């Protein structure tokens, strides 16, 4: 049996994969902590703080659909309907089969369509 030397590139790729995996998991873990804190404060009516937390969550993990969903709800509560729509769109893009996100979005659309001639609150 002849043992061939493993090319350097392959080794580098394996190494990157090994590093990236836990890094992604770490990002999700950190983002989840922000999301949970956001939910906690939103339940106490501190929606601005919740927005701050959820904005941070989507910054840490831009593939976290639940964080975008929560952020959309908070924007809706603050009357920032354009931002809410963008966040819902992103949440659905990341998780198109999530019925809860879709349901939230449908309810939002009902309000938004009714007031589409209204002025946007900045």
């Amino acid at each position: 049996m002849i043992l061939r030397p493993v090319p350097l590139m392959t080794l580098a790729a394996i190494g990157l994969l090994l590093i990236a995996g836990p890094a992604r998991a770490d990002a999700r873990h950190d983002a989840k902590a922000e999301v949970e804190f956001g939910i906690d404060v939103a339940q106490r009516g501190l929606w601005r703080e919740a927005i701050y937390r959820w904005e941070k969550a989507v910054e840490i993990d831009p593939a976290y659909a639940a964080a975008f969903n929560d952020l959309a709800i908070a924007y809706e509560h603050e009357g920032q309907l354009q931002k809410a729509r963008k966040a819902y769109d992103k949440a659905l893009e990341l998780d198109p089969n999530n019925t809860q996100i879709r349901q939230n979005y449908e309810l939002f659309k009902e309000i938004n369509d009714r007031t589409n001639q209204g002025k946007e609150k900045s």
Partner: protein
Amino acid sequence: MTGRIKGKRSLSLALAALTSLAAAITIACGPDSLEIPIETPITPKLDVSPFQRVLVAGFVAGGSEDVDANQETVRLLRSQLRTKSQLKVIDADVMPLLDIVQEQTKAAATPVIEEPAIVRENVPTPGGQGSTGQGSNGSGSSASAQPMALPKVIKEEKDLEPYERLFANTAYWKKIGEEYQNPLIVTGTVLFVPHTSSGFVQRDQEVMDNFGRRSVRPMRTYMERKGFILRPKFVFIDGRTGATMYSESYREEILYSAQQNTPALSSYFELMDRLVPNFLSALSNQKIKGTRVLLK
């Protein structure tokens, strides 16, 4: 043989252990979603800051004879504005706009034709009257220079069209505005008509199976139904200039089973109840309550 049974047993034990572990994890971490009440603030469509007062003048109304849609609409909108807007509501007599338009037409020496069917053939299509909430800002001169025949009784939507020229009569509304110290003027048209419909309707029906268990199943049944259609158009006029600032039209309908005898007035209020938040959102801040699901 014994080995196979043992294998099966250990597999079910493992599955049970996994299920309980999953349940324990779920309980420990809490649910992944949470329903939360929210209130969405809606900014008004109109800038009413130049006004301190609002005059709900009156409506060109028609349809069912059981409801005086002009009186009832004015009364309802005034009471809603009193509690849900910052504007002071002017208490004035309800303007009989139908008569006013007819008098104006008479004064312009236009004959009033009584038969709506004949009238419609002669009525030119009024321009600039959108039906989807688009603001119309017409000048009164062109409208009043073009005499149009008016149906005396309003039975359907087309009968209202010739009356809409009144809202473009800026001179008239400016005069009204001066009379009431330049308020925001709310006027428009209201059509409230009886309506019947028949066809297949899907209804949930409770059924019981052989074991006495109840369940709800959708059933299609043929039904004759009757009810009403409400079509209001709200026109907001600047009392300082007499110009239309904004207008919006709505359509709501309600149907009951043919056996049900619902008074016209209660149907009218039921339909108006659906529209009032939209009307108010044109001139005051509103909050729409709802619930959403937060996710982890």
